[in-house]
């Protein structure tokens, strides 16, 4: 299709405007983390690094970061396990309720977080509470894993559909046992799909606040919870801003990992 120069120009302008819309707020947070004024008077008059020092010294923020990493690791591991199991079941077998199951996996992320949150909260209190297990890191991991399964499931299932089963059959024909086939054929085929799904699951969990509000016990603070409680405290504003700036800078990391290690061309070669 040949677009007129005017149309091309308009599309280019739309792209540039869109990217500006996406990046200006993020840049503002980065600049404000050096803004000497406590109320972020704009434009900034004096630049300082003392908020970065203050944030570094903030025990609350550091503790919350640690909790968030633990919760995200737990949720990612669980989601990797459950998501892969369902993907294999759906790909390799025809069974009653298969379509319903794949809809059910989308449900925790399609339903508003507050619904999943209260449902899990009251279920946890009435079932696990009776067993004497209070809410805490475990309940947060359970809540997060529930909506993280879908990312792993989708990635692995898409990969399985693309690669088919012929390589595994060949492996079995050549005398490999089931474990050998999994270790040397299946796993390498799905490795980058696991990485992509796992990264997404980690990010979803790390960032989640709504389900966390309901599943975290009174003593547990993840980083989003910490940011949210401190957001409305004028005293803490500069420190919150630095934490926000750090999170923006860190968001480059998973993209880099995905580009570096998850490039689909790496294992597409095997199947082509």
């Amino acid at each position, binding site marked *: *299709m040949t*677009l*007129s120069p005017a149309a*091309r120009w308009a*599309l280019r302008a*739309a*792209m540039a405007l869109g*990217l500006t*819309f*996406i990046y*200006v*707020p*993020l840049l503002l*947070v980065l600049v*404000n983390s050096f803004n000497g004024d406590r109320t*972020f008077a704009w434009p900034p008059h004096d630049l300082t690094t003392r908020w970065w020092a203050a944030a570094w010294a903030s025990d609350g923020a550091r503790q919350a970061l640690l909790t968030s990493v633990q919760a995200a690791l737990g949720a990612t591991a669980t989601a990797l*396990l*459950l998501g*892969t*199991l*369902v993907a*294999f*079941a759906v790909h*390799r077998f025809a*069974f009653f309720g298969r379509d319903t199951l794949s*809809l*059910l996996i989308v449900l925790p992320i*399609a*339903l*508003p977080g*507050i*619904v999943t949150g*209260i*449902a*899990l909260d*009251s*279920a946890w209190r*009435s079932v696990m509470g009776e067993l004497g297990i209070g809410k805490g890191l475990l309940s947060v991991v359970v809540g997060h894993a529930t909506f993280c*399964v*879908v990312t792993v499931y*989708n990635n692995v299932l898409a990969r399985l559909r693309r690669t088919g089963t012929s390589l595994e059959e060949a492996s079995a024909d050549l005398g490999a*046992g*089931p*474990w050998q086939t*999994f270790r040397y054929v299946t796993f390498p085929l799905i490795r980058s799909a696991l990485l992509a799904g796992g990264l997404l699951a980690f*990010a979803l969990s790390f*960032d989640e*606040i*709504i389900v966390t509000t*309901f599943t975290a016990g009174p003593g547990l603070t993840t980083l*989003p919870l910490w*940011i949210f409680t401190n*957001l409305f405290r004028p005293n803490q504003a500069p420190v919150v*801003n630095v934490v*926000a700036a750090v*999170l*923006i800078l860190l*968001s*480059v990391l998973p993209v880099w990992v995905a*580009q570096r290690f998850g490039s689909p061309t790496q294992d597409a070669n095997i199947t082509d």
Partner: protein
Amino acid sequence: MDAGVDGDQGVSMHRHPRWQLAALLTAPVLWLVVAYLGALGVLMVSAFWTVNGFTGGIVREFSLANFRTILGEEVYRTVTLRSVGVAAAVTVICVVVAVPMAFYMAKVASARARPWLVIAVLTPLWASYLVKAYAWRVLLGNGGPIDSLLGGPGRGPGYGLTATVIVLAYLWLPYMILPIHAGLDRLPDSLLEASADLGARAGHTLRRIVLPLLVPPVAAGSIFTFSLSLGDYITVQIVGGKTQLIGNLVYANIGAAGNLPFAAALATIPVLIMVIYLIAVRRSGALEEL
């Protein structure tokens, strides 16, 4: 993950697909069906319970009182309509902004620029939701950058319903761009050329070839933008001023009021809307695009 593929009884399991399937499905089904769906089910049932006004205890007897209140009182209708309106407005804004961007990324930009544009759109997706809402709180604040850009304190939209819609659209925009981009990327250039060769002008090709193919990815993206906006109560607290959405009412009934059955009854509204939405969208084949 390898329970069904290997293990001590690897050989015997290999011969018994039924056992393999059971090994693969037991844990996920226990988790998602028994635990998650069970919890949701109990929540939906508790919507028909009530709270004793004197003791504050939950009365486990069937009653339609909660739903009668929701249907009868003006405020719940207003808030529901407002929430659906916000979710719809956010979705429309996202589509309008995302389609030209995705089209440029997939079909117009040079081959070298394309992967970088995808990365540029993808990266903010990993930045924290709260951080982005917070950035807008600073932007929209009284005397903040937007105000000074428009000529002084109070000139910008400030905190409120407009701000909520803008910020939600900002938050979910990448979720709309990515599926549309993926859909356009799959669309072979030869198809567009064929249309041109057969005499269609660019506008005609857009309407007759590109737009119909955009329906499934737009529907997929709208699941995110619509559902995420419908359930939100955090953004609205950060930039919404006094605006209330369904999520705020549900939250207030659990927290301050301690009326879980009524909160559950309120929560059935977005669930019902989303289930209808998902079923409608499934027909377009959008669930495969997620």
